[in-house]
Structure formats: structure tokens, C-alpha cells
């Protein structure tokens, strides 16, 4: 498994790159995506870094692109249109054509300065167009408002006359003459328009500040009017204020203006008003044509921008990524070149050299980039963890990594998870029908993979589905397999090979067909309808789950052996691996042996057997009465002797795990101290070969701490071996819950409706059954089984061997993310 089992061997490379070639070098490396650069300027804040000016410049360019994007968004979907523009339009068109020619592929190659001027030109052009259009639109809207106000003032004047007659007749005698006097003589008015929500405020303030000496009428303008600042349509009202006296008039005018209303000069005379309206309509129509022209000009230019914009974005983002990487580089002493450091997989050194050569050549630099591997072993640096994985493994690797990223070169649990994870899931989710549904669902995902991939970028839940598609497929397939073993399809048994049992006449008892009859695969379907079905399946599933659990845990401990060998920690083999495996096998392994032995024995043929063998009692007595086995509980010969030996091994392995290791460590440390004090070490590295890592720890050795650490480990393991084994019983519990739930749904919903003899109920029953199956079993149950499988792997399996602390993930510098984003934009 090589690469899969352990992370790729990494090497730390130091580059000495000529200033002139830096950019190109980083670009070439980015294309390959094989180097994870180390930040050499960690102590510098963002604006003290060497290439910050370039990054700023690119930020500016990106801002321009953002401006294009917002103008595009504002314009909404661009209509396809071919229009005859005036002279001006043609000039603008030519400019665009040029950009088009340079565009696409060339955008990636063109000089940054040139790109900058291109962007600037485009921005200026677009701005000019926008400004022109804005000006025209302002005029246009002003005219429109004027027209609407003129129109509705006419109506208001009409109403007002009627109102005044009515109001006047109701007035008391004192005030009546006053109004009559002024009416038609000193009554002035102002008309204008204001946003609908503010008319109330206007009215209130006017009323207050004139002490009620005014009369305001308003009328809604039907069509919403565009607000140029916010580019949204707002509802406005036209109003007319009547008042007397010049001074109040000034005040009213001031208030109206301060509240943001537009005032228009409108005549009282009806014919003049009509003239005005006609005049305005004419102007509006004229302006409309011009406005449309300028609008289509803008849309045309936006259309062109839209096509190149993703390429521009891609280019700018790539440049920015390059400079951000270059900001991690340090000047060397001579100031002629830059120092960079980066991790890369050891076997890709050649690739790197090719890229570097290519880069220096394309710049024409005579001095090649110098690379040098740094020996990181003694520097207390952790190399990053890197797995070369396929799409298929990705999901499983993700499961492992959400627990912890593997230490460098540590055994990776995910290749084992590929089989064990779906299998443990399937033990809990075993049903041929449900497994089939899940498989079909995952195949559907595979069929629509392109669409789902796109959706996955936006929607997190779809992303989960996309990333986990292979896991789902595997889970579906394994569930079908376990479903066959359990012999259940939607909780109904299948008689595929012919059952071995026949019902006895006039009785509910079943008889074996022939003496040696055996159902060849899975559980005999006849069990399903018996009263002892639950007893049988419980016993089977419980024992199976414990068996699977022990097997998986033993696998975990054996993997820890490989880790110890790989890291040359021989002490750990003797005093960790060996006691651990002995402890687990002497008791729990023995339990598995008993289970299997009991299964394989034909108890009908045993002589002198009165009752059944109870394994629980045997195992309890393993500790309580070591060395003795009750006569009727004896399973095989010499059971008592074997058990007493195993019990001794079990007990002895605990101190073996606890005591020697800390003492040996202390002994080694003391020896080293003596060496140091006695004479200068000539070959000091000798001591390091055992525990390269513990180099630092040994400098400061605290026996108490080490001992407590070991004690915790021991206690955890001994208690863990019991609790973890028990933990695997969840396999049984969930499997039981699943099969019982699906049985209930089948019998209580579907079969129940069959028994009612009303036409149509079956259809309803089927629908309800299908829905509950889908929601409860396919979604909820599968999620819970998934979670439990996850836990079994993270806790019970991983804690046997998987450290995953202080690890760093290998994140090579590449353009993948940027390219994906640009692709999204293009779509």
C-alpha cells in the first residue's frame, strides 16, 4: 500500500532564486502544485513584507474588476441585441474588439502593466458611458416627475376648489370672511413631489411651522420612480400646498427642499398646464430615444466585459497568489536573490528541478536557481503530512482527518476504513431492500455527478453528498450483503435456497426436513415467523458484534506494532505492544474462542449434558474462581488449566505495561547525564537513534511525570479493553432496532391495510409505509448507523494506534481553487 498506509516522505528544500526569476519560478511551481512553502517572514506584519506594493496594486486591479462585476449585476441579464449606433458607438466598439483579441488565452500571458492599462481604459470607457447615461436619466426622471406632478396638480386643483366650498360653508362666522377674502387673491401655492413615506412628515412639519396656516393636498403618482442614488424604484406622491403670504411661502419652500422634495413650477391656468404637459411629453419622448441608445451602448460594452471578466479575475487572482507566496521569501545577504523554503514529496524533486529550469530559461536568467535539501531531522521541525489519494479514498481520508491529521509517516487508518467502515455500518443497517435503495441513490449521484459537483460549491449539504459518494455506494453494497446474511428484504425473509424446516401437522412446531439439512447462506427464512426468532437473532448478533469488535481492536494493536517498528521504538514493543496484545487476547480473545467453539460443537451429541452451557458464567468464573470449572459447564478438556494460565497472563501483563518503561527511560537518561558530565561526547548521536523525538524530553526528565503518564495509559487500556468491547455491542443494538422498526412498519402499516377489506386502503397503506421507510429508516436510521460506525472507528479503533497530534497537513501552492472559481464565473 506504500503511499496509502504511510504519508509520503517529504523533504525540506531551500531555494536561492534570482530576483529576476522569482515570479516565473513561483508560477511554474504553482502549475505543478507540488511545493508547500514555509513562511520565512512570520514575524513581519502584513505591510512590512517585501512584495506588499505589488499585492496592493493587484488589490486595486481587483477593485476595478469588482466594479465591472457590480455594473454587470446591476444591468441584470443582458439582452442580445444588435443595434445601429452612431459614430461614437463604433469607436467604443473598436476598443472592445481589441480587448477581445488580446483576451482569453492572452490574458494569462500579457504583461501586468499592459493589463493594468487595459483595465483602466475599460473602466474609463464604462464610467463615461455610465455617467452619460446617468445624466440623461436624471434629466429624464426630472421631466417625468414634472409631468406627473403637473398632471396630478390639475386633479388636485379640481378637488381643492370643491373642498374649499365645502369647508367654507362649515366655517363659523368669524373666520369665514377671512377665507373668502383671500380666496383667489392672496392664496398662493407650491407643487412638487416627494417620497410617499415622507409626505406625512412633511405635512406635520409644515402644519406646525405655519401654525396651521396652510393647506396640503396630495395625490399618489401611479408609476414608481427610480431613485438614482439607490437605483431602486420608489413610490412618490405629488402634492400641492396652498398658503398665504410671501414669508410663509419662503419658509414652506425651504422646508420642502430640506426634506428632499422636488418643487416644480406649475401654472394655475388649465390651458397653460396642458401646454406644459404636452411640452414635457415631447421632451420625454425625445430623451427616451437618446437614453435607449446610450443604454444599449452600455449593455453592449458590458456584454463584452462579461465575456472576458472571468479570465481577468483568474489572472489577477493568480498573480495575487504568486505575490502572497513571494511575501514568504527572505532576502539573502547579497540582496541579489531571494531565499525560499518549501516542503515537497521526496520523489518529486526531479519534477521540481525541471520546473525551476524552465522558469529560469524563460526569463533568460543565466544563473540557475540553486536548491538544497535541508536536513530537518535534528531541528525539531515536523514535516507536513501528505497522502496521495484517489477520488475513491478521499471520503474515507476525510473521515480520518476530521478526527485528526496523521502524524508524519504514521500508519493511516483510512485504507482499513474503506472496508471496515461500510461493513460496520452495514451490520447495523443490514437489509437487502434498504441497501439496494441506498446503492441506487448513490448510482444516481454518480450519474448526475457534473451537476452535483457544481451545486456542491454553493451548498454545503450537497457537498457532503458529493464528497461522500463513494462511501454511500460502499455502504449500500455492504448493506445488501449483510441484508442477504440476515435474510431480510424490507423486513421480509426470502426463501432462496429452500428452507430446512417444515411445520408439523396441526401444530405450530417446526421440524427439520432431514437430519443434516443446513441452509446454505445466511439465516434460514423459517426463523422469521417463529416465537424464538428474537432470541435467536439477539444471541447471534450480540456474539457477532463482540467478535467483530475484538478482531478490529486486535488489528489496531497490531498496527501499533508496525508503528513502533517504523519509528524504531523498541521499548514500546516490549512494554506496550506485547502486554497489550496479551491482555486483550488472554481474556477477550479467549471469549471469542469460546463463542466460536460453542457454535461449532453439536450439543445434541454430547453425552451427559443436561442444561445448556452459559458462557457468561464461564467468563465470570474465569476471574472469580480461577482454575476451577463446574462439571456440567465444561466445554472442552483441560479447560480449567488453560483458564488459569490465561488468567495469570492477564494479570501479569498489567504490571508489565505499567512499571518497566518509566524505569528504563530514567536509567537511560541517567546514563546520558553521566556521559555528558564525564567527558565530551564524540559521537553524541548514538543515543538518539532509539528515540529521536524524545531528544528534548530527555534534557528535562521528570520521573514522576513519566510514571503518571504511563499509569494513565495503563489504566486507560485496561478499562478501555472492557468498555470498548462493550461499546461494540452497539452494533447489535442498532441492528436490532433497525430490523424491528422495519418489521413494525411492514406489519403494522402495510399488512394491516391489506387485512382491511376496503378498496383503496392498500394504496394508502403503501404510501404511508413508503414514506416512513424513507424518512425513518433511510434517512434517520442510516444517519444514526453512520454516526455509530464513525464513533467505533474514531474511538475504539483509532485509540489503539493512531496518534495524530501536532501534525500539519501538506497544502501545496497551486491554482486549483482559483481556476475552479473562474470556471464558476464562466458558467
Amino acid at each position: 500500500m506504500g503511499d496509502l498506509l504511510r504519508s509520503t516522505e517529504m523533504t525540506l528544500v531551500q531555494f536561492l532564486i534570482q530576483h529576476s526569476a522569482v515570479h516565473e519560478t513561483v508560477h511554474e511551481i504553482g502549475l505543478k502544485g507540488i511545493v508547500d512553502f514555509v513562511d520565512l517572514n512570520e514575524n513581519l506584519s502584513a505591510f512590512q513584507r517585501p512584495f506588499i506594493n505589488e499585492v496592493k496594486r493587484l488589490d486595486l486591479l481587483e477593485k476595478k474588476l469588482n466594479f465591472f462585476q457590480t455594473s454587470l449585476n446591476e444591468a441584470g441579464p443582458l439582452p442580445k441585441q444588435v443595434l445601429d449606433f452612431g459614430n461614437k458607438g463604433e469607436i467604443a466598439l473598436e476598443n472592445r474588439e481589441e480587448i477581445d483579441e488580446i483576451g482569453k488565452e492572452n490574458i494569462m500571458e500579457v504583461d501586468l502593466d499592459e493589463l493594468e492599462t487595459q483595465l483602466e481604459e475599460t473602466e474609463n470607457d464604462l464610467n463615461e458611458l455610465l455617467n452619460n447615461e446617468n445624466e440623461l436619466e436624471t434629466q429624464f426622471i426630472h421631466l417625468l416627475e414634472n409631468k406627473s406632478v403637473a398632471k396630478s396638480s390639475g386633479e388636485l386643483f379640481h378637488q381643492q376648489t370643491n373642498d374649499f366650498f365645502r369647508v367654507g360653508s362649515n366655517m363659523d362666522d368669524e373666520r369665514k370672511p377671512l377665507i373668502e377674502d383671500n380666496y383667489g387673491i392672496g392664496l398662493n401655492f407650491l407643487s412638487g413631489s416627494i417620497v410617499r413615506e415622507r409626505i406625512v412628515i412633511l405635512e406635520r412639519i409644515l402644519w406646525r411651522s405655519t401654525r396651521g396656516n396652510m393647506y396640503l393636498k396630495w395625490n399618489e403618482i401611479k408609476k414608481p420612480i427610480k431613485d438614482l442614488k439607490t437605483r431602486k424604484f420608489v413610490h412618490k406622491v405629488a402634492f400641492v400646498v396652498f398658503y398665504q403670504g410671501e414669508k410663509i411661502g419662503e419658509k414652506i419652500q425651504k422646508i420642502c427642499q430640506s426634506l428632499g422634495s422636488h418643487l416644480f413650477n406649475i401654472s394655475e391656468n388649465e390651458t397653460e398646464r396642458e401646454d406644459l404637459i404636452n411640452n414635457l411629453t415631447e421632451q420625454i419622448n425625445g430623451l427616451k430615444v437618446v437614453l435607449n441608445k446610450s443604454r444599449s451602448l452600455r449593455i453592449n460594452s458590458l456584454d463584452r466585459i462579461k465575456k472576458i471578466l472571468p479570465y481577468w479575475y483568474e489572472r489577477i487572482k493568480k498573480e495575487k497568489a504568486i505575490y502572497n507566496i513571494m511575501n514568504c521569501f527572505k532576502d539573502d545577504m547579497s540582496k541579489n536573490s531571494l531565499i525560499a523554503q518549501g516542503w515537497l514529496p521526496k520523489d518529486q524533486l526531479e519534477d521540481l528541478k525541471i520546473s525551476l529550469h524552465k522558469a529560469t530559461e524563460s526569463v533568460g536568467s543565466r544563473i540557475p536557481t540553486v536548491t538544497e535539501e535541508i536536513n530537518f531531522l535534528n531541528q525539531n521541525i515536523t514535516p507536513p503530512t501528505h497522502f496521495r489519494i484517489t477520488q475513491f479514498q478521499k471520503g474515507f481520508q476525510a473521515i480520518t482527518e476530521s478526527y485528526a491529521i496523521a502524524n508524519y509517516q504514521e500508519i493511516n487508518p483510512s485504507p482499513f476504513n474503506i472496508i471496515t467502515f461500510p461493513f460496520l455500518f452495514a451490520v447495523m443497517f443490514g437489509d437487502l431492500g434498504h441497501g439496494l435503495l441506498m446503492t441506487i441513490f448513490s448510482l444516481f449521484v454518480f450519474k448526475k455527478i457534473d451537476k452535483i459537483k457544481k451545486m456542491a460549491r454553493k451548498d454545503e449539504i450537497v457537498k457532503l453528498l458529493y464528497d461522500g459518494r463513494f462511501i454511500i455506494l460502499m455502504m449500500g453494497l455492504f448493506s445488501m450483503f449483510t441484508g442477504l446474511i440476515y435474510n431480510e428484504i424490507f423486513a421480509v425473509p426470502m426463501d432462496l435456497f429452500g428452507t430446512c424446516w417444515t411445520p408439523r401437522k396441526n401444530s405450530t412446531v417446526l421440524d427439520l426436513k432431514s437430519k443434516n439439512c443446513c441452509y446454505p447462506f445466511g439465516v434460514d427464512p423459517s426463523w422469521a415467523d417463529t416465537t424464538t426468532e428474537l432470541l435467536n437473532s439477539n444471541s447471534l448478533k450480540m456474539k457477532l458484534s463482540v467478535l467483530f469488535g475484538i478482531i478490529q481492536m486486535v488489528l489496531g494493536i497490531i498496527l501499533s506494532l508496525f508503528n513502533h517498528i517504523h519509528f524504531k521504538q523498541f521499548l514500546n514493543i516490549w512494554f506496550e505492544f506485547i502486554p497489550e496484545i496479551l491482555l486483550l487476547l488472554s481474556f477477550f480473545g479467549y471469549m471469542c474462542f469460546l463463542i466460536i467453539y460453542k457454535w461449532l460443537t453439536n450439543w445434541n451429541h454430547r453425552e451427559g449434558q443436561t442444561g445448556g452451557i452459559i458462557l457468561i458464567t464461564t467468563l465470570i468464573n474465569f476471574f472469580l474462581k480461577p482454575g476451577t470449572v463446574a462439571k456440567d459447564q465444561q466445554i472442552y478438556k483441560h479447560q480449567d488449566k488453560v483458564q488459569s494460565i490465561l488468567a495469570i497472563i492477564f494479570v501479569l501483563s498489567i504490571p508489565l505495561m505499567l512499571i518497566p518503561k518509566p524505569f528504563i527511560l530514567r536509567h537511560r537518561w541517567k546514563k546520558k547525564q553521566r556521559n555528558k558530565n564525564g567527558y565530551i561526547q564524540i559521537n553524541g548521536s548514538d543515543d538518539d537513534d532509539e528515540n529521536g523525538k524524545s531528544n528534548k524530553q530527555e534534557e528535562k526528565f521528570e520521573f514522576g511525570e513519566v510514571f503518571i503518564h504511563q499509569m494513565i495509559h495503563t489504566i486507560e487500556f485496561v478499562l478501555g479493553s472492557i468498555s470498548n468491547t462493550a461499546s461494540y455491542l452497539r452494533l447489535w443494538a442498532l441492528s436490532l432496532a433497525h430490523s424491528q422498526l422495519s418489521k413494525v412498519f411492514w406489519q403494522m402499516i402495510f399488512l394491516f391495510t391489506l387485512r382491511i377489506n376496503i378498496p383503496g386502503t392498500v394504496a394508502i397503506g403503501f404510501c404511508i409505509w413508503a414514506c416512513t421507510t424513507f424518512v425513518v429508516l433511510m434517512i434517520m436510521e442510516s444517519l444514526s448507523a453512520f454516526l455509530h460506525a464513525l464513533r467505533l472507528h474514531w474511538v475504539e479503533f483509532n485509540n489503539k494506534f493512531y496518534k495524530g497530534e501536532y501534525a500539519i497537513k501538506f497544502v501545496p501552492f497551486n491554482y486549483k481553487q482559483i481556476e475552479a472559481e473562474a470556471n464558476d464565473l464562466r458558467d
Partner: protein
Amino acid sequence: MLSFNIENGYYEAVVRGYRKSLLTSTDYGNLIQCETLDDVKLHLTGTTYGQFLANEPTPLDTTVIAEKCTEKLVDEFNYIHKQVVDPLSTFLDYITYGYMIDNIVYLISGTIHNSDLKELLKNCHPLGMFEEIEALSVSTNPSDLYDSVIVDLPLAPYFVDCLSKEDLNELNIEIILNTLYKAYLEDFYKFCEKIGGTTFEVMSELLRFEADRRTITITVNSFGTELRKDDKLKLFPTIGYLYPDGNNALAKAEDEDGVRAALENYNQYNKLFEETELDGEKSLEDFFFEMEVELNKASFERQFHYGVFYSFVKLKEQEIRNIVRISECISLDRRESLNQYVTLY
């Protein structure tokens, strides 16, 4: 206290989260190393301010930075303000009244100097905005102001005392400002008293400090004006630690020595003048700011009260003042005064 979290727990948590996002002394240390405003922007990008300046054209202006920072404060404040229920919502309303007073006075004084209304509105604090604010510019005397606009505002009762003033000149505006503020602080104090509990304990401290600060500031600013003792006394809030003896003594003070003598018996304030004299760089204002920051920080030490909302706004305001001051120093290239900021955390 038991039921505090039912309605306010989430918002208290949010505001404490906001407090966590305030710039720390390391951030300030980095900010003052900046060479240009672009560097400031770059550095702020790395903090919770994030991309708030991303789409501003370069070269940046300090006013733009101030505006955007305030915008962030307003966003955060409004996020809470729009969700909470009474009495916390009223409490937050009270916080905005202070800004409203500032805006009103600013607008009036701007109008009598014939400044452009739009320009004035742009400079108003967004937390103290109300719908009729534009109409303020029309009025020419206090009663007119009251009749046309202010009568509708929650501030109306505060304004009653100002109605006697004949016209709007600079002195009168100043008097209006202080009268309004006095009434506002006293009312806010009463409101907190009504809420009681920890809120009152915390807020009374903050408001009393605020009252004293105003009292002292008025006294110092009134040197050489024609304000008489009684007039001054009317402007002093009556809730501070200085009330009543200190207020009386301050009203009599005619120069700095008088103020110092008046403050002698007040532990927390008598140091103020000593330190301002020793340390020529810092003004009285700065010391008040520092004291304010300390008090507001202390209010975060207690739980289950509304004071944190008030304190957060004040702290954030101080932070904005800091950023603006640093930016100004950078853009004017006055490096020597760069470290005149008040560290919050």
C-alpha cells in the same frame, strides 16, 4: 437576575463577542508603525474590520476611514437594537438620544453659519438620526425649533428649559446643548434607577462620571465668558459625584486654580489637573477618555446587566477615535504624536 437570560442572554453574549473584537494593544502597536493610510487599511483587514475598506478608492482619506468604522459600529448596534424587547430596547434608545442631541446642536450651529445642509447631514452621527432632521435647518429660534420638529422627538421634554432663549447665537447654542445634555443624563439616570439591580449599579457609576465630566468641561470652557454663576449652575447635571458641593464650588471658579481647589476633595478627579500639568502632551479630554475607558471596561466584569451595551458603544467609539487619530497623524506625517491613543485592551 434569574430571568435576565430569557430575554437578554443572547444579546449580552453578542455584545461580549463584539467586545472581544476590539483592537488590542498589539494591533495598535502595528498600526502606529504604518507608513501610509493604505498600510492602516491593510492592517485593519487582518482584524475584525475585515474588508470594510476594500472597495474604497485610493488614496484613502481619514474621513472615509472614520465613516466606515462608524458604519460598523452602527451595524453592530442596530443588529442588537432591532431585535431586543423592552426595557432593553428603551435602554438602547436612551443611548441614541445622546447622539441625537449632538446632531441637533451640530445642525443648528451649522445652519447659522450657512453651511451646506447635505454636508452637515453627512457629518451627523448615524446613531442619532431621525426622519425630520433636515427640517431643523429651517428654524431660526428655539421656540420655532421646538414647534416644528423637536416636539415629536423623545427629546422634547428636555428642550422645555431652552424655550426662553430668544435667538440662536453661538453662546445660546452651547447653552442649549448643555441644558439638553443635563436633562438627558438626569432622565437616563432616572430610567436606570427604575430598572434597578446591577444595571443601576453599573450605569449610575458611568452616568455620574459622565455628568461630572460635563460639569468640569463646562467650567473650563466657560472661563472668560459672560456666564454668571447661577447660569452655570443651571447647566451642571445634578447626578454626579460632585453634586451639590462640587457643583457649587465649580460654578464659582473663574480660572484653573479655582477648579483645582473645587476638586480637591474628590479623590478621583483631583489627580486630573496634576497630571495634565505634568504631562504637557495630554489634554484634560484625554484623561477623561482614559477614565471613561477604565470605567467601561469595568462594566464588562459584571454580568446580567444592561451597562455592557452602553459600555460597548462607548469603547467602540473610543476605538474609532483612536483609529482616526492615528490615521490623521499618519496622513499629516506627525509621527511624534502617533502614540496619543487610549489603549483599550
